[in-house]
Each structure stands twice: as C-alpha cells, then as structure tokens.
C-alpha cells in the first residue's frame, strides 16, 4: 500500500476496476448467448446432446462458469469500495478517488443484478427438460 505503484501495476489496477464494474455484465452476456444458442440450436436439430455431452450438462456449465466470473467481479468491486473508503477515512479527497468509488458502487450493484439473472437461469435449467416446447 505504501510503495508507489509502477506503470504496470497502475495499468493493471485501472483495468481491474473495469473488471469490477463490467465483469458481471460480460459474464452474463456469455452465459446468455451460450445457453440460449446451445439450447435452441441443439433442440432444432432434435438432439439433446452436444458433441457427446448431455445438453443439460453443457447448459449447467454455461450457467456455472459465468456465475463464478460474476462473483469474482463482485469481489473486485467490493475491494475497490473498501480501499477507497479507507483512503477517504484517511483524509484523501481527490477526484479520481471519488470517481473510482462511484464506479465501484455501480459495479457492486450491477454484479448483484447479473448474478441474480444467471442464478434464475440456473433454476430454469433445473426445472425444465431442455427441449420441451
């Protein structure tokens, strides 16, 4: 914390912030495209398997992996929130700090929303047979 970060660390930190803000969104996008297209296209081909894997298993992966990525994004956003909160408590008042803090608030909430959507999709995978019309 005390050492000044080098340019590489700064770049990583800057990108990490964006992962915290938009990571859940990206993960959800992957989840949706994968789950929908696997389901619709496999069923259109009258098959409940994809490359030998049962369709419901493939769909579970399409729920689980993005879900984990969203949790990671949520943790990063929370980290930014805490770090900026500590810096604020220590008396720092600069624009970049407040800006990052606001983005972190957005990130925490957005990730919670995306996590909910992915989870509800997961519930549907449990409830429905993959190809029931």
């Amino acid at each position, binding site marked *: 914390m005390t050492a000044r970060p080098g340019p590489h660390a700064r770049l990583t930190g800057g990108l990490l912030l964006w992962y915290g803000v938009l990571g859940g969104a990206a993960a*959800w996008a992957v989840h949706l495209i994968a789950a*929908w297209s696997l389901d619709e296209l496999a069923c259109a081909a009258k098959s409940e398997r994809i490359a030998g894997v049962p369709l419901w298993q493939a769909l579970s992966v399409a729920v689980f992996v993005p879900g984990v990525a969203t949790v990671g994004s949520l943790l990063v956003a929370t980290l930014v929130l805490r770090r900026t909160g500590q810096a604020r408590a220590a008396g720092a008042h600069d624009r970049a700090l407040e800006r990052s803090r606001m983005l972190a608030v957005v990130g925490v909430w957005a990730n919670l*929303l995306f996590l909910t959507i992915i989870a509800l999709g997961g519930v549907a995978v449990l409830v429905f047979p993959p190809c029931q*019309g």
Partner: protein
Amino acid sequence: MSTTTSTPPGIGRDDLARLAEHWDEPRSLRAWFTTVDHKKIGRRYLVTAAFFFVLAGLSALVMRTQLARPESGVLSPQEYNQLFTMHGTAMIFLFATPMLFGFGNFLVPLMIGSRDMAFPRLNAFGYWVFLFAGLFMWASLPFGAAPNNGWFAYAPLNQDQHNPGLHMDVYALGLLFLGISTTSGAINFIVTALKLRAPGMSLNRVPLFVWAIVATAFMVVFALPALNTDNALLFLDRRFDTHFFDPGGGGNVLLWQHLFWIFGHPDVYIIVMPGLGIVSAVLPAFTRRGVVGYPLIVLAIVAISIVSFGVWVHHMFATGLPQLSYSFFSAASTIITIPSGIQIFAWLATMMLGRLVLRTPLLFVIGFIVTFVLGGFTGAMFALTAFDQQVTDSYFVVAHFHYVLLGGALFPILAGIYFWLPKITGRMYHEGLGRWAFWLVFTGMHVTFFPMHLYGLFGMPRRVYTYRSDLGWDVGNLISSIGSYVLALGLLLVLIGVVHAIRRGRPAGPDPWAGDSLEWSAASPPEAYNFPVIPRVHSLHPTWDERTAESTTTGATKDRILSEGKRTLFTSELDARPERAAQMPEPSFKPLVLAGVLLVFFTALLLGAYPVAVAAVLAVAATIAAWLWPPRRPDEEIGIAS
C-alpha cells in the same frame, strides 16, 4: 484556489470580440446550409422530429377514426395497413430517437461546459441524413407504396412473393439510410462526452442527462448493426433472390425476428433512456435539491442499457421455441425491472425531500411517473412467458407500449420542451397554456390507452383494420378514439404554446429556473461559443456551486478562455484533466453534399437504377476523400525528419 496568486479579472472585451469573430456565423442562406453549430443542428432535429411526429400522429388519428365504430369504412385495409406501419416506424425512428438526439445535441455540449460537439461536421451530416431519410420514407405514402408490414416487418410477409411492390424496399432502404445518421450521431455523443467535458467534471460529476445520452449512444452502436444486417439481408432477398428468410431455399423466418429484436428491445430503451435523463435533469430545478442517490441512478442507467440486450426473445415467446430458452430471457426481463424501480423511488425520494415548484415541466414529470409506472407493471408481466403468450399481439400489448413510450418518452420530451424552451429561444412560455396542455395530454393519453388493456384482454388482436360489433369491443374502442382527439388537442396546445413563446414570450434571462447544470450558466439563447470562459467544475451541481461560478469570473484563466481561434478544451476520459485546446472546424457544404449524394444512392437502389447507384457510391467516396483531405503545411510544422 489560493487567493495569493494574481487572479486575472474575468474575461476582457477584446476576448469576447475575438470569440464572437471566430464562432459567429453570418445570417445568410449560405450559412443556413453550411452551419456546424450544435445548437442550430439541435434545434433542427427538434423541429424536424416534431414535424414527423405530426405526420405520424395524424396517421394515428385517422386510424382511431376508422376504429371508433365496428366495420366502418373510413380506410381500406390496404390504407390502414400502410398507416399503422408508418405510424409505428415514424414514431420510433423518425420522432422519438431524433427528438431526443435533438435535445442531446443542443444540451450535451452546454451541460458539460464545451463549445461544440467533438465532430461538428459529422453532426451536421447526421442531421441532413435524418431529414432526407425521413422524407424518403414519408414520400412513399402519397404513392400508396409506403411500408405495410408493421414496424417489425416480420418475414416471410416482407418477402417479394408475399408483398410485391416497393413497400418493403422503402422500409429496408429507408432504415438503412437513417441508420447512418443515428450511428454517426451516437458516436459523436460518446466521443463528446468522453473528451470535451469541462476540466474537473470527472465521471462522478457528469449530469445524469449526459449519462443517459451516452448510455443511449452505446446502445445504438451495438444494437443498430442487427437491424442493419436484417434490412440488408431483406433487400438482398427481395431484389437479388437470396434465401435468408425463405424456408423454401433453406432460410429461416425466425432469423428475422432474432435479429430484429436484438436491435428492437435495446431500441425501446434507446427511446426511453434519454427521457429518463430528462426527468433527472428537470427534477433538481423544481425540487430545489439534487436528485437522491446519484450513483444508484448511474447504476440504473448502465444496468438497463446492458440488460436490454439480453431480453429480446421475450418478443418471441409465442414462436414455440424450447421453454428453457425462454426462461433465460424471462429471467433477464424480470430483473430489468429493478433498476427502473430504483430510479422511480430515487425520484420520489427527491420530491419528498425537496420543495416542489409546481410548474408545467414538473407536471409533465409527475404525469411521466404515473404513466411510466403503469407501463412498467404490464412490462414486468410480459416477462412471464405464460402470461405473455396470452396477451402478446393483442391490444393489451398496444396499451403497454404506449404507456411506456408516451410515459417514458413523450411526457419527458414535453417536460423538456417547457423546461428548456427559455434556454433554446430565450423566451418564457405561457404557464396557463402549459397547464391546459398538460391536463389535456394527460387525460387524453389515459382515456385513449387505458381501455386498450381491457379490450386486449377481451380478445382483440392488434393490427386489425376493423372488427365485428358482436364481440364486446365497441365501447372501449369508441372511448379510445375520443381520447385520441383529446390527446391531439392537448398536443396542439403544446404547439401553440411554443409558437406563442417564440412570438410573445417575455425574455427569460440565463437562468429562469435556478437550475443546477451548466447550461443555465450560459446566456439564453447561448452565444455561438456557449461559454465565454469554459468553467472549472467543482461539484455535481456546478451552477449552484460558488467555486465553479468563480472559475468563470474572477477565476478565469487564459487556458479556459481560448479566444485565439475557434477553439475548445479537450480533457481526459475519466477525470477530465485538461489535455489540450483543440481547433474546431469551420462551416462547410460538404456534410450537405454527402447526405445529398447518399439520398441519390438510396433512391437509385429503390428504383432499381443500379448504374446510378454505383456512380453515387463513387461520388460518396470522392466527397469523403475531399472532406478529410489534410491541408498542406510546412514540413517543420508537421514534423518531418530531414
């Protein structure tokens, strides 16, 4: 902000004179065609979109007249089908989006403390293309060749064998043409908001309206390509016998729907989002405080614009896809309600804490809340596949989206018109006229559209040009038709109010509402250069903030006056640190010429004059090449190593 350094006294007369010399455009015909001033272009967007609104609105009135009684013969089915298609297409593409782009064009540079958009010539080009594309589409109506397939133009009814004539060619080409304008406008908003904000306006100090416009612009950038793909493939199918949507040739009709709604659902938010931004911009002035929960509203804007891309299949819940596929979209469509809820309660909290100044703009905001909330309920209902299958494509859905679109876009637009009219024209509107207009519009809107929920549930499908009298739909339809006339009367009063204000309104002064954002610190109407001194922003409500105000008077510095040449300030993306002063382009005919050549191109395609189209493409390339041709400069200036 130390007071020991020598503070330059505000801006001098000579600086003002130089600014006027560099920025003012003469009042001539030539200047009219060549202008690149974002305020003039914004005004043109507003006026032109309002004109298309009148045409689309009159179409609706004729349709309501036809539907007032069962089995009436005001319109033939062919006429009715063209009118409902043009009504929807024009309201969505030629009114709502351009109107809000008009507000954005006028306001974004003013709100962020800039002197123009990032690409002023591209801005002018976007307007001309919008105008030409709108005329291109409406011109088909007198020839009886207007689009006739509904605004979402499902395949295979849009195919040549089911729908001969030019109707759907006009649709495909018109929307492709218009897409050029929308895309270029969107990119311009994004870059402007990223790079031209006044120093100090970091992302946590950006006005909510600007957030909304930028989010809208991002949605346009990523949603419009799907529509363009769809229309390009449609045109190829119709004219060049490809088989994308033709099951006989191995194509698939549902591909059209997927692509259309990948665009179409974000488009709903493309229309509503700037409206929500207007609400957030209007409230502070009429509650005397900032909107509650700024980061939460930013969250709502960002979250809605992203989630809106993943709900498209809820428009296809009756097409018989697997229920599991539906459920992924059902989940997203359900959860997208939450960010909207956050916004509604943030506005309510703002009103419950502030002091309400009940003027016409606030009335329209209240009308917005009532209407949009009702539309939101039915919207959440559509997220549930089982319920959607019962009411989709019935009048229930017509009621729903008119609640959402009139509530979410028209009411905010009207609020915005009254709110910013003093800024745009320099004159106040007549409050009494404004209140009458509000009550007529509000009453007319609900009387027209509320009964549609009912006769939709009672089994009336949408897009029918007539109905039998023995089905119990007569009374509701008659009420709707009467309501539509009341609504039209209210809108006429809005128009009268605007004309009255321009002709007779009393001068408004720079800040009639004691507003919070930067446009209220510019003159009314603003000078060509917007701000004599580009402010240094210290808070979310710069006009209520003394330090920001000081930065343009006693705290004015040379690097923010920038009177040497037509210049404005570029700042960094997130934290708005000053980067450099940039030279802005002079007026030019080239945007108009380019738009005109494109009009020739699309008209030639429509009429099948392909050699002319090829020639037009070459002309387009030549115009762009000339537009961007770099001026010749000495080697030392551009930096050539010898």
